[in-house]
């Protein structure tokens, strides 16, 4: 129990103290709680001016919720009962804002002990409360954080310690090893107890240590926060591994270095792999370069080769590429031909017979197909090609396509053909010569033999004049025959040499000449000769004259009645000829026919009569050396023509001479 008056003070201090105290609201309330007294502090703390609040209830200092809960009344009641009451809580100011007040309400009694008034002393503890609150919160937060950290640290520790693939260790600021994990043990080989306390330099190769690498990295971590490195490190057993490391500087709040974390990964395998890869890669690159160069060289070589067509075909024979030689030989430009099938180079006949496909098949089965034959150029002209088709395979043995190399051997072929023709001609001539020599000697021997025999007979009949005369005559006849034979032979052999040049000749003139030569014989035999007008053609004039002479002479000689000779001519095309001889080169021929009414011959002997010395009749019957018709044939053949004969025994014969027209 106290009263203001009882508060020790100096005179007048009490009220002064109260009224002027700014930090405390000291107010006097009546028994109902209405405000009797006010002070500066109250004004200051609660916001009301004195005249505003005197007589008002102290309830309005309390928060509305407290008022509803009748807190003011409760406090008064408590003060009544206990003499005073202390309470801290939110109070409300005049402006509605709140402050944290610490309130003491004291009951004042009179001398009889009856409550007269209450004092209410309130202190504004808002600021303090905030700080307290802050502190508390901070403390709480810190505690929480601490807990979290601890948990985290625990977790991390677990994590770190148990990670096997990474060495995760802690270093002191100097680089001494403070912690170790399973990964570090695994990677570097040391157990924790062996290594903790040692400096991390130990992991570096001697040369690196000499170079100061560990410290450089440490410094780098300090400067930049972290340092990353890859390089060889050394294990406990001295072996080395390729490590990828990160050193991270750890800082205290003030920024000072408290140490480093060092995470190391063993990348030896990877490094080896990468090294191998790089090695392989560089080897491959080199190979690639070489291949490219080689390919360029080959390409150049093939592209520019002019004498060989070297082309690539796909598996179906379509052309994939072209070279200079192909263009030169076959006539197509690359742009025109690529994509087309190679069949296009073959003649229609070859295509019809499936030759291209046959060659491809052969290349597929045996690897290679070679062929020589006529091929067709772009302009339709032909060339003689020697070709090789080679099948190209991939690693599995499947056909990728074909290479086709073609050489133009036309010149060589033509030369070969000419050579062959020439050889055939030579062989034929040789054969002729042999026959000729044989027959000549044989047939000449006959008159010779006779002469000898006749001479023999004469010698032994020297006294018999008649006999001698007879046989001398025979000798003369035989010698004449020999001469005739020899002349014919010479004529025959001369044919082909000294031909001179073909001259455009009027055959009518030729006929005239020959008839003139035979004038006597014609008269003797009372022969009649009828002829069509004959054409003019290019012939060897002497030869043609002889031809006419032989044929007409034969017609005159081989007759048993008055000879009637008919000479006609007509133009004949090659196609119209009946069974012409092979190898006819010209397309048009003049046909000269010499028809007689002589003794004719058996058609059986058609071919025979043209053979040298072949005679169909006995020597006594009809004159003739037997060479005449052979000479006719040779003459006609030298004009690239041919001769035929048809005969009917007893009726006559007809000789057909075919001479080519240019």
């Amino acid at each position, binding site marked *: 129990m106290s009263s203001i008056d009882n508060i020790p003070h100096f005179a007048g201090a009490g009220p002064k103290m109260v009224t002027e105290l700014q930090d405390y609201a000291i107010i006097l309330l009546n028994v109902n709680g209405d405000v009797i007294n006010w002070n500066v502090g109250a004004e200051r703390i609660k916001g009301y001016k004195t005249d505003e609040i005197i007589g008002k209830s102290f309830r309005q200092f309390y928060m509305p919720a407290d008022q509803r809960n009748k807190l003011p009344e409760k406090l008064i009641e408590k003060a009544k009962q206990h003499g005073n009451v202390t309470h801290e809580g939110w109070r409300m100011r005049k402006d509605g804002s709140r402050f944290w007040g610490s309130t003491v309400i004291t009951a004042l009694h009179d001398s009889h002990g009856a409550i007269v008034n209450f004092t209410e002393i309130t202190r504004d503890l808002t600021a303090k409360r905030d700080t307290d609150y802050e502190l508390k919160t901070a403390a709480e937060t810190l505690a929480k954080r601490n807990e979290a950290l601890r948990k985290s640290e625990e977790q991390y520790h677990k994590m770190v310690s148990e990670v096997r693939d990474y060495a995760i260790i802690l270093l002191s600021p100097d680089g001494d090893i403070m912690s170790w994990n399973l990964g570090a043990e695994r990677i570097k080989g040391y157990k924790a107890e062996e290594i903790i306390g040692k400096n991390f330099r130990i992991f570096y190769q001697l040369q690196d240590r000499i170079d100061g690498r560990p410290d450089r990295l440490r410094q780098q971590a300090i400067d930049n926060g972290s340092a990353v490195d890859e390089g060889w490190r050394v294990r406990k057993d001295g072996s080395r591994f390729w490590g990828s490391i990160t050193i991270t500087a750890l800082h205290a709040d003030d920024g000072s270095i408290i140490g480093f974390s060092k995470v190391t990964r063993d990348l030896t395998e990877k490094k080896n792999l990468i090294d191998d890869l790089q090695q392989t890669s560089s080897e491959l690159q080199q190979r690639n370069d070489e291949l490219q160069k080689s390919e360029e060289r080959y390409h150049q070589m093939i592209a520019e080769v002019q004498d060989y067509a070297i082309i690539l075909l796909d598996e179906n024979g379509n052309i994939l590429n072209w070279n200079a030689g192909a263009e030169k030989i076959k006539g197509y430009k690359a742009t025109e031909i690529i994509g087309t099938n190679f069949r296009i180079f073959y003649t229609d006949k070859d295509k019809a017979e499936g030759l291209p496909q046959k060659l491809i098949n052969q290349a597929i089965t045996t690897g290679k197909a070679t062929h020589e034959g006529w091929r067709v150029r772009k302009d339709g002209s032909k060339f003689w090609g020697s070709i090789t088709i080679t099948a190209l395979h991939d690693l599995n043995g499947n056909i990728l396509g074909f290479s086709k190399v073609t050489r133009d051997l036309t010149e060589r072929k033509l030369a070969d053909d000419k050579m062959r023709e020439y050889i055939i001609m030579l062989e034929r001539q040789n054969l002729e010569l042999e026959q000729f020599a044989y027959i000549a000697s*044989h047939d000449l021997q006959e008159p010779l033999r006779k002469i000898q025999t006749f001479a023999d007979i004469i010698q032994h009949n020297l006294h018999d004049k008649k006999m001698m005369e007879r046989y001398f005559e025979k000798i003369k006849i035989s010698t004449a025959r020999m001469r005739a034979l020899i002349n014919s032979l010479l004529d025959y052999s001369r044919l082909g040499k000294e031909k001179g040049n073909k001259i455009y000749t009027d055959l009518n003139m030729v006929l005239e000449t020959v008839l003139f030569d035979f004038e006597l014989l014609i008269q003797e035999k009372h022969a009649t000769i009828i002829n069509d007008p004959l054409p003019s053609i290019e012939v060897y004039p002497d030869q043609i004259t002889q031809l006419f002479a032989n044929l007409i002479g034969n017609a005159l000689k081989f007759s048993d009645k008055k000879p009637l000779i008919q000479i006609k001519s007509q133009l004949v095309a090659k196609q119209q000829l009946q069974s012409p001889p092979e190898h006819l080169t010209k397309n048009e021929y003049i046909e000269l026919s010499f028809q007689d009414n002589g003794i004719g011959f058996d058609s059986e002997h058609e071919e025979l009569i043209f053979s040298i010395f072949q005679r169909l009749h006995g020597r006594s019957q009809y004159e003739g050396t037997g060479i005449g018709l052979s000479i006719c044939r040779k003459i006609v053949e030298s004009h690239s023509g041919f001769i035929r004969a048809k005969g009917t025994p007893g009726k006559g014969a007809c000789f057909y001479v075919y001479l080519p027209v240019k």
Partner: protein
Amino acid sequence: MDDMVRNTLYSSQPTLISMAKESKQIVLMVDDDPDDQEILIMALKEVDKDIVCTALSDSLEAMDKLKKDVSFVPDYIFLDLNMPKLNGLECLSQIKQLDHLRKSRVIMYSTSGETKIIQKCSEIGAAHYLVKPTGFSSLIEALVSIFKHN
């Protein structure tokens, strides 16, 4: 011509062959060369003056005659190899098929002396092969030896 031949005396002659004969020797000669005919017949006469010679130029004709006239059986038949129409070889084959001529001796008469041909003639059945000699005396000698053979 036959008369002329018959009347010729060939002086310095080799030995005349005297043969015991029932009848005169008959010779047929087939050759298209008249000179050869004459020479052969002359030679034959020298060998045997009584010899009866027939010469034919056409081989077809000759064969015809031989086939048809079976009474005509020559002792010797001289065949020229090289004849038109039917050559000597063909005549030989045909003669060999004629029964009535089986006793006739066929002598091939030719300028050529090829071994093959001689062999062939022998195979077909020629009695002799006579190469036409150069010179009259050699011909007579050859004929003598042929006749002696028999």
